[in-house]
């Protein structure tokens, strides 16, 4: 009987660990994808702004 309880406990711990690991991985993936999307959008926006505003003013020589 005692060995069954130990087995359940181990199973519960393993399951919890699995769930936690899956959550962490999901968060990491979410952050990664989010940073790629957000960072990419931010980068594109900065590039567009840079291109629109930074230019030399001189006549053609």
């Amino acid at each position, binding site marked *: 009987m005692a060995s069954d309880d130990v087995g359940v406990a181990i199973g519960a711990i393993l399951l919890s660990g699995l769930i936690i690991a899956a959550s962490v991985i999901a968060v990491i993936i979410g952050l990664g994808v*989010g940073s790629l*999307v*957000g*960072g990419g*959008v931010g*980068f594109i*926006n900065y590039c567009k*702004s*840079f291109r629109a505003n930074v230019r*030399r003013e001189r006549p053609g020589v």
Partner: protein
Amino acid sequence: MSISATKDPAFRSYFFGKGYRDLLATIAESWQRNLDSAKEFFDKAPGSDDPEEIYRSCLWIAAGVSTLIFGTVLFVAASALHVVLLCMVFLLVYVGFTGLWLLERSYLAIRSFFMACPHCHARTTIPEYFCDGCGAIHARLLPNSYGIASHICQCGKELPATFFLDRGRLQARCPQCHENIAREHVESRRIFVPIMGGPSAGKSAFLFGAVRQLVDHEAGSLGFRAEFFDKRSEGAYRGVVGLLESGRPPDKTRDPIPRAFNLALHKNGRLAFLLYLYDPAGEAYQDADKLAAHGFHDYLSGMILVVDPFAILAVRSRYEGELKRECSSLKPSDLPIEDAVDRLLLTLEADFGLSKRGRVKQPLAIVLNKVDAFDLNDFIGEAAVDRALAAWTGSQPPDRDAVRNMVLREQLVDWGEQAFVSRIEGRFGNVRYFSCSALGRMPDGSRTEFTAREVLPPLLWIFGQADSASFASSTARTGT
């Protein structure tokens, strides 16, 4: 280099103006774009109970939140990088033009290159330059915030901004009087010598007599080829020499603020020296205000004071009878000799930084003129020097120039000019006495040519003091 437009006819370096306006505009626009992007994502999230739509909404909301968070992080990082890069290039440009500016300044100082205007006598480091594309005037064509080595004119022409890139090829003008300036008035070795003295002391005759001897004879023996630098100088020379050749003395100088008489001395086919000789009207020495306009005192190489012996009371008394007969031809100067020096010293103290007890470092040649008159040759001419040499009792053979110096000094003292001699020797660190006949003979109404005598040694002595190596043979001749 990037540049932007300013009020100056050149474009200011991008990193000294427009770069920072662009930075602010980029930051502001980028932030606004991030907000707009995030709003666009949020607006795309459909409001529905359908699980699939809810899932899609979550994705758009996540994208909007990501844009707000990570877009802002990237925006901050990109802005910081932009600021750092801009500042780094700004520093590089600043260090670049400061270094080149210092190098050029040092080089120009070592070579004694500066602008000396022959018209108004203004002194500046460099003149104003004309753009050779559109003629716009560039007042400070130096390594600065408008460009390190070159400036871009607003017409688009690239102009050299340093001596090392042949800036001197551009037409220049004086920033003060706006007269055009030849390159040699900035970039050449120059010797500046004013011929001073009261009215009718014989300054013009002395100047043109000396130039005539230099051009016709002496320049060649010194290894130079003398050439008039401009048509104005040549015209003035031809005019006066024409008068002298026909037995007429030069006309009275009217201009109290003279333009420089420029003579070029070439050696081995290159300009070695540009001489600036100034012949102001003697009336300038009767008025300290007029002397203040003689800006060349700021950079002169030496001075020649032409003294009319008949301005000395003792000489007038001695030749009273003769002077009554010859007054119209001799034209004795009515300015006491110490007055010219006193006014000059006052002007140097008031306007040219000479302290009250300071000594003028530049050499001063005191030239007693009109040695041809009556028997003055026996007192201040070569006859007096010969007599002193014959009477010499020292063990060493005397130097003729040193003896002449002594004879003339003592004669001035004997004529009661001790105060003048003391004043001169107290306030000038390097004084030498000479005598000459600027016309060569007394004006007697005849048309016999005037030929100056002993007018060149004072000038050559000054030249030798300015550059002993180049005028070695002349210094040997004048005993310095």
